[in-house]
């Protein structure tokens, strides 16, 4: 091989508690190339990048930068050694100027005798912007910029370090076509100068447009690295999605009953619009889509966390108005939220109190909680959900992620809902608990509950659901039946590949 490997990683292994996030991954990056990294959410891309940046430490494996062993302590250390990153979430200081943001932390560069000269900083920014064709005023306050312009500032900051490696995490998601063109130009200039670029994107056309090679990740494993010219879109998609469907998702067929929840044209300004669907008793309705497509926002609207501002929701034919989670619970809707740490577990409470959190108000006698009833119900639910714990009075943090998640599902079920919304119920959950949660879902469906399942794990949501809806940019762009659906079709809809497989696409789109 004549290509010079600037970054090489061997046998990288990483666990998060019971989740095996990276399995013995090898990775290499050559000088002056654009390497696309493709994979579903949770495939291990971000974990690997975070290891390169020193945010996480690998459990095992070696890394070499320019042939020398590389052990980044933190992102700052990685930056000094020549790796910079364009983050998906903007990390700008809104009250400062564009120039100050680009050169943040490097005031010294523009100082003489301890006094800072902002003009020099502005001038340096202008030089940088001119060189790469970025059209933003360096003196403008970041507050006044559009999101796309902010993203450009973020990009400018990353390249201002003149790093050997620039990692771009979904850099185009906030950009319009015009800015994407500028970004491509920047990329070419950088690679011509020998910089290596890692390009992470969910827009697969971009991979073909910009990348030299592509590395595909799936379930924490590196599947393959291919030269893009030798690859077709179909091969790429099946590489990303193509997992053997195994018995992890033991879907049982249950007779489907009456419509329980009827959602008609609901909308929330700036988030989603004109969403209509029905869920029936005994049915599992799956929602697919990329993170940020609007799935969670729609459910938050229905459940009253962020109430909807148009449209109608009917439960068993009766119109309901969910302005808060309490109203939604009273109307028979329960939700297991996506972010277990932020919106789910209360770390200082024990298993019992966590489990009964959404329903104990129902078992109060003159506002005093009926503790006997509470203990009894919590105990019974712990057994039903097969929560592995030394007892219901154990602190919740002594449980594994999977068992904490079972407690969260138990919390929702104790309210005896008619509709159960599960938002990413298996994120960060080990395989065993995953399968148990799903078996229990089947049982609930068989008992006549209507279940809405959101998951970024395509095989999972396809394996579990009777019907599938695909969400993109806050709208339903596809509907599929369990028996006839192909993963490629759903992928195409999720990633908005207009020219790929599908007449239905055109009908459903917009």
């Amino acid at each position, binding site marked *: 091989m004549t290509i010079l490997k600037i970054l090489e990683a061997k046998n990288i292994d990483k666990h998060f508690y019971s989740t095996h996030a990276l399995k013995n991954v090898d990775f290499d990056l050559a000088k002056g190339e654009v390497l696309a990294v493709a994979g579903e959410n949770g495939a291990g891309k971000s974990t690997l990048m975070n290891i390169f940046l020193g945010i996480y430490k690998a459990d095992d494996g070696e890394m070499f930068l320019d042939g020398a062993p590389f052990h980044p302590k933190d992102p700052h250390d990685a930056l000094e050694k020549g790796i910079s990153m364009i983050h998906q979430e903007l990390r700008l200081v809104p009250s400062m100027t564009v120039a100050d943001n680009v050169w943040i932390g490097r005031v010294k560069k523009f100082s003489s005798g301890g006094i800072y000269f902002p003009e020099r900083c502005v001038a340096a920014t202008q030089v940088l912007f001119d060189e790469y064709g970025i059209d933003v005023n360096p003196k403008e306050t970041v507050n006044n910029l559009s999101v796309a312009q902010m993203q450009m500032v973020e990009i400018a900051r990353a390249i201002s370090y003149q790093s050997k490696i620039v990692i771009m995490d979904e850099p185009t998601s906030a950009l319009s076509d015009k800015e994407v063109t500028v970004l491509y130009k920047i990329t070419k200039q950088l690679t011509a100068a020998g910089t290596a670029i890692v390009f992470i994107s969910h827009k697969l056309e971009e991979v073909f447009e910009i990348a030299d090679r592509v590395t595909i990740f799936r379930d924490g494993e590196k599947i393959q690295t291919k030269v893009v010219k030798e690859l077709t879109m179909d091969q790429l998609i099946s590489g990303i999605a193509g997992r053997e469907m195994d018995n992890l998702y033991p879907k049982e067929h249950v007779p489907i009953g009456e419509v329980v929840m009827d959602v008609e044209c609901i909308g929330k300004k700036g988030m989603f619009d004109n969403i209509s669907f029905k869920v029936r008793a005994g049915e599992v309705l799956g929602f697919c889509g990329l993170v940020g497509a609007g799935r969670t926002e729609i459910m938050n609207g229905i*459940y009253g*966390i962020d109430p909807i501002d148009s449209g109608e929701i009917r439960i068993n034919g009766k119109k309901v108005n969910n302005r*808060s*989670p*309490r109203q*939604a*619970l009273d109307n028979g809707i329960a*939700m297991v*939220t996506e972010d277990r740490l*932020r*919106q*789910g*577990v*209360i*770390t*200082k*409470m024990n298993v019992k*109190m966590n489990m009964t*959190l*959404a329903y*104990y*108000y129902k078992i*109060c006698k003159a*506002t*005093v*909680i009926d*503790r006997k009833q509470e203990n009894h119900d919590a105990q019974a639910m712990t057994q039903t959900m097969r929560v592995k714990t030394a007892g219901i009075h154990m602190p919740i*943090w*002594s*449980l594994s992620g999977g068992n904490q998640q079972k407690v969260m599902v138990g*919390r929702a079920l104790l*309210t005896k809902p008619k509709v159960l919304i599960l938002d990413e119920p298996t994120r960060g959950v080990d395989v065993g608990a995953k399968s148990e949660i799903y078996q229990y879902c089947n049982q609930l469906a068989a008992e006549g509950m209507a279940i809405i399942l959101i998951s970024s794990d395509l095989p999972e949501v396809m394996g579990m659901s009777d019907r599938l809806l695909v969400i993109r940019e806050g709208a339903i762009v596809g509907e599929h039946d369990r028996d006839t659906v192909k993963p490629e079709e759903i992928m195409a809809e999720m990633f908005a590949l207009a020219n790929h497989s599908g007449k239905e696409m055109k009908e459903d789109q917009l």
Partner: protein
Amino acid sequence: MEATVSKKRSKDDIIIFFLQNRSLLLVGLFSTLLSLTTNTFLTTNNLISLARQISANAIIGVGYTLLLASSSVDLSAGYMMCMIGIVAGLLSQNGLPFIVILFVCILVGALCGAWNAFAANRFKLPPFLVTLAMQQIYRGALMLMSNGSPIGNLHPGIIFMGQGYVGPVPFPVLLMVIFIIIGAVIFSRTQFGRNVIAIGGNPEAARVSGINVAMTRIMVSVLLGITIAFTALVSCGRVASAQTTLGGDTVMDIIAAVVIGGTPMGGGSGTVVGTMFGCLVIGLISNGLNLLRVSSFWQMVAKGVIILVAVILDVYSEKIYERMRNKG
């Protein structure tokens, strides 16, 4: 390997046992020291006067425990108490019956509390800032009402609240016990108490689970306001006049007592009974230093040190929990 892990765990367990019972241990330690170094400490008179001294703080402490457990704070409590005392003084001078005075004081306390929480909710301000501003407003208001001078001639009912006896038990001590029992029941047995620790532990999770966070916060502040009103009457009754400077340092004492008692600054759990022991620790420091004839200026320093130690212990125990969680 196994052995070292379990050894580590059991060491943590011991530390946690000490941290959880820190107020009891401190009470034990101070009492022993004082019994050994003085011959005036272990006398009925001294112990009763100690109980009376801590009763006022312990009554507010009940409300304040709920407040800290809900992960909020109130800096205005001291001057709110002082203002309510002045209100009681003015009403006494107008010759109103005791029941009216009591009712008005409770009402003022409840409304002030409700306003503190409402303003923080409505304008999305940290309670720290709202109550810092309100403290100054209450202070100004009480000076305006009293023209800056203490009010004497209090209603005999108020005097009784501060100085009276029921059988052999001083009334304030009885009141303290009643409040602690009610507080402990509310805290650990009722829906409301559970809501409080839920919003203190993780407000977002509480909201998603159907708890009305804003309303719960207001209710907590109202309860605190009511305990403040009672304490105001007890404190005024004890010195038989409504002072304009009463309660200036109360807030620090109370926060120290509640935190030493085992309720974390960050909220999410709490113990009303612990708070009583926390008050006892603070009380023992003043009492003991008095008995040992230490200057009151040194007492201030000592109290400050204890508060600092309390907060350090609090942060330290949170860290240990954090460490155990990460391992788990």
